[in-house]
């Protein structure tokens, strides 16, 4: 008569976006003087991070449409709050609205640059707050084409970098860098990242699996400038080249520097979500 309580999967699998925002943040170019490509690559990543700093906090809504090879669609809807933490990873709170069976389920993440992230899941049926493992890196979310690590905080320290080349991307000129995940649990051998030279916005990421096959491509669009300084993408499309499935993530209702504080990013705050 014992029960195994539900766990992360139901929601986490839904949590497709943990911190995609982290990679939406776009920033300015590195004037590569020293030609060591590793140094240039790191410089671009660091400068991009620096340009993204100082936003304080924001809230936004996310809609995700999962599409399989036959074109059948499935929808997810959630809200998130992000609080910038100086000198460390950000704190984020995700609240699920759809599908309705996981409504009010919430996920709290304290991301860290040097140590493992801390994650708590709120299960509304039992009103239970559960600390969960952050070890899952390569797992996919609910059949979505985003893996945990794609969503998770894209901290600079989690990769090593190499600048490859500049090339035209649309009307812009992009730098192309390769980044290699430090974590051996990553599902990727490497990623290629396209950023425009002027604003350092990410326009495309190519993911290569452990066998170095081109697995997925993520493209960014509908960039908007917030607080006169921060570029955030409004749409992200992940296409899986092996399965033909895709996931489109749309961001709306961005609000920056709103009147919430650290108390929403605690376990007490987690129990309060709606």
């Amino acid at each position, binding site marked *: 008569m014992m029960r195994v309580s539900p766990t992360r999967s139901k929601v986490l699998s839904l949590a497709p976006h943990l911190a995609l925002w982290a990679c939406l943040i776009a920033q300015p170019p590195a004037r590569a003087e020293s030609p060591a490509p590793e140094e240039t690559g790191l410089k671009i990543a660091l400068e991009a991070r620096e340009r993204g700093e100082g936003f304080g906090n924001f809230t936004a809504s996310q809609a995700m449409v999962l599409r399989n090879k036959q074109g059948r669609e499935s929808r997810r809807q959630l809200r998130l709050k992000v609080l910038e933490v100086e000198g460390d990873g950000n704190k984020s709170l995700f609240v699920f609205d759809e599908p309705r*069976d996981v409504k009010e389920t919430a996920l709290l993440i304290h991301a860290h640059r040097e140590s493992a992230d801390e994650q708590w899941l709120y299960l509304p049926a039992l009103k239970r707050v*559960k600390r969960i493992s952050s070890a899952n890196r390569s797992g996919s979310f609910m059949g979505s084409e985003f893996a945990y690590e794609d969503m998770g905080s894209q901290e600079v320290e989690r990769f090593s970098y190499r600048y490859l080349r500049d090339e035209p991307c649309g009307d812009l000129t992009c730098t192309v860098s390769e980044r290699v995940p430090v974590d051996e649990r990553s599902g990727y051998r490497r990623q290629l990242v396209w950023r425009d030279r002027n604003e350092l916005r990410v326009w495309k990421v190519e993911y290569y699996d452990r066998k170095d096959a081109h697995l997925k491509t993520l493209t960014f669009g509908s960039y908007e400038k917030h607080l006169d300084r921060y570029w955030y993408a409004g749409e992200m499309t992940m296409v899986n080249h092996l399965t033909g499935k895709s996931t489109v993530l749309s961001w709306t209702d961005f609000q920056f520097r709103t009147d919430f504080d650290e108390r929403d990013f605690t376990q007490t705050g987690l129990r309060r979500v*709606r």
Partner: protein
Amino acid sequence: MPLSFARRRVVSGSIWILAAVFSIRAEAEIVNRDFSGRFSAESRWFPETGAFPGQRSLASGFVAEPKLYLEDAAGRSFTLAPFFRYDHSDPRRTHFDLREAYLLLLGDIGDDQWELRLGVDRVFWGVTESQHLVDIVNQIDFVEHPGGEAKLGQPMVHLTWSGDWGVAEIFGLPYHRARTFSGLHGRLRLPLVIDNERVEYESAAEEWHFDFASRYSHSFGPLDLGVSLFDGTSREPFLLPGSDAGGMPAFTQYYAQIRQFGLDAQMTVGSWLFKLEAIQRSGARNLLGLEQDYAATVFGGEYTFYSVFGSAADVTLLGEWNYDGRGRNATPNRSPNTLENDLFSGTRLAFNDVQSTEITAGFLSDLGRATRALALEFDRRITGQWSMHLEAVSLLSVDKDDLHYAMRDDSFIELNLVYNF
């Protein structure tokens, strides 16, 4: 009758208090209004003939759980969540409960925060899976599910104070809810029906004894720790044999005054979760009806293999050991099982697909007696609003000395079809 009258009195009383408090704030503009919930159709089938004459083999019915949420611009909110279950085979299982009806206020004190919840609410404490040992604020809604996770709403004043140093909570609990039990023709019942009309209390104040609870919790890096205290009317009844008003043999529920110290801890390291719960309880009656102070614990852990065999699925293995210092005189706490020396092992398979398909299996084995139980669950979303839950609980064997020997033929299969809105 006096009991159900009192229950109605406290329920309607708390609604009126809340309505009054909220109407004072009526000028405050509601900025967030949400109506959600779920309807569920359920069928529970017992393949074996019951141990007692007249017990039904099929229990069908439905559940309605709507939920209303109102929030004003200052972040104050009111939550109302009634619950209704209809069961065609056991009138005792047909029941209404106010799961939640509370006003939530919050604010800052310097760098710290406070939160006050006034009304009826549910509270969960603990970390383990095979039983919820430290969890004590709410009474169990046993007719809902024998697993002990369905709980009755509890009237309370709940004050939380939190800061960088952790979270401190105090609970004032002005009214006691008696546990729900199956009726004569229901399954999962004891040899005698429990007389719901007569509940006895150690305290002269009976169900109006003011109970007190408190908890401190904090996260220290990978360690999440909670210590708790409960002082008041036990949530676990001692069953006195006797007779009901009609002269039929029946059990009377007796609730003692107890004090419980609780500890819950979880270490989260890589793919491992290590868990511990422990209590020290005084004032409670043991199986023989004698007062006996005791300690009990449950500890163990779980490990998850992510993306197994190159798929999206995760596999989690769980193991926990349950111990009760009273040994053979132990009583069941939050489940029908007497967990005095019981090993739990389980596995959870999460497919991480579009439908969030999940399968769990749990096996509970009494190391000192012949009791063994197996539980299987299957969960899957059907569409954006419909989901299903299939569950099988198999009592492979029940020792004659176990209190729930009367339930030995009550293995069941249950199917739920849920509409979420």
